[in-house]
């Protein structure tokens, strides 16, 4: 299987304490990867390394042919266009409508007006957000906001979707819907990496589970084992 992401002896510290220590891992194309671990374990940092919002102090990260120790500043946008990102706090732009939020990744690459219209409208329809198209983020429920954020992350057809605690601000029922949506996106062929402090949100067998503990990566095949460890 194709490797999409490789981490090679990655070490990264903020100040004196390593946030990630000697991380070795691979992400295969098409898989659903769950990275779990308690708060402060380094999950967000790991995802930031993938979209290269952060570079390792030593070792390197390779994502879809771009290597963290060789990539040029002007190549970063090319890398980021292959990656979709979803955050715990949604990070929608408040002064723009749902439509404009979702259209943003296409607009910053100069996609033609008609293509933008077509893609955004059909994506919003698939996510059940058509009627909210002209609403502003603050007018939406948390679940709706996160669906808009996922639509924004997916509109440019990324090869990999990074979701950092996507359910962290949502109640259990809505959380389940969001996880189902991510699983559905994965079935469509997009690689998904989800970071969460609660791996039970993803049904066992639906993905590969990795466990982060104070910056050290451990393998875990089933969430029940994780439960015992933590």
């Amino acid at each position, binding site marked *: 299987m194709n490797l999409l992401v490789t981490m090679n002896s990655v070490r990264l510290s903020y100040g004196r304490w390593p946030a990630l220590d000697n991380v070795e891992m691979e992400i295969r194309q098409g898989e659903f990867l769950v990275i779990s671990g308690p708060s402060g374990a380094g999950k967000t940092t790991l995802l930031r390394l993938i979209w290269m919002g952060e570079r390792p102090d030593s070792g390197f990260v390779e994502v879809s042919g771009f290597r963290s120790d060789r990539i040029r500043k002007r190549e970063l*946008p090319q890398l980021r266009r292959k990656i979709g990102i979803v955050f715990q706090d949604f990070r929608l732009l408040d002064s723009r409508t749902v439509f404009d939020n979702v259209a943003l990744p296409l607009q910053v690459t100069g996609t033609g007006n008609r293509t*933008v219209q077509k893609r955004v409208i059909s994506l919003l329809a698939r996510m059940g957000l058509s009627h909210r198209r002209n609403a502003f983020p603050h007018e939406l429920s948390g679940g709706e906001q996160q669906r808009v954020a996922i639509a924004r992350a997916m509109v440019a057809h990324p090869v990999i979707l990074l979701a950092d605690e996507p359910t962290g601000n949502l109640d259990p029922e809505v959380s389940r819907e969001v996880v189902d949506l991510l699983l559905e996106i994965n079935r469509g062929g997009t690689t998904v990496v989800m970071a969460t402090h609660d791996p039970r949100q993803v049904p066992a067998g639906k993905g590969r589970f990795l466990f982060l503990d104070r910056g050290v990566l451990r393998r875990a095949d089933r969430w029940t084992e994780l439960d015992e460890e933590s």
Partner: protein
Amino acid sequence: MSLFQSSLREISLNLHSKPGARLVTLLMVALAFIVFNTFLIISWNLQGLMNREENTVGMEVFLQRDLSQAQGRVIGDNISSIPDVQSVYFVSPEEAEALFRAELPERSDLLDVMGSDFRLPASLQIVFEDEAMTQRRLSELARQIEALAGVDEAVYGEDYLPGLLKTVTTIRRLVILLGIVLVSSISMVVFYTVRLSVVRRSLTVDIMKTVGAPGWFVRIPFVVEGIFMGVAGSAGGLLLAAILSKVLSGAVAHRFMPVSWMTMVILLGAVTGTVGALAGSYEKER
């Protein structure tokens, strides 16, 4: 939408967000430019005054009224032989009157009032070699010429000119100094305003980057904001200075600066704004 069009859209979105935050900066830039413009106007007027004086440097020697034209010419010949004198030109009373009417048309009624018998005095206009143009040599020459028989009075920009020259030089230095202070302080003000704007819109900036917007695309709204503040601020300063100049024109006769200088002021605003904005929107990583 092309990339260019969406970039224009981002520029306009940025300019329309929180215009109040920029108002203070605009006001500061405009006020700084008013001070600068005031000195420019003073400099321009002094310069003009001096140019006019320089043209008439030389000396006007008025002859006694009872002299004949021939006697006047003899005195002229005598003066020509004095060292440092370049040329002597005899102005007859008729010519003096014609000159008076041409140069001061609004006062020509004065001559009419004096009646047809009135004659302006004949005079000699003397131009000196450039080396003689020191105050000391000029006053020496004036004394020498006034001592000649038939000469009534020798007139030149005696106490006026050297003082003027010094003032003009001082003002010009002041304008340059002020220009440097202006450029650096306005750049700083624009720098901090743009920085603030970047921080205020950090979510937009971050999201733009994570969705793969090119660096220039993220940055250009802020650069335009800086240029806008420089240009609008300097134009505002120019406008306020023009109003001030208009209001004061009754009390102090003066001219406003020429168009080329105004263009320069706006250009200075644009350059300063650009420098501040480029520095303010610069980010090392990501």
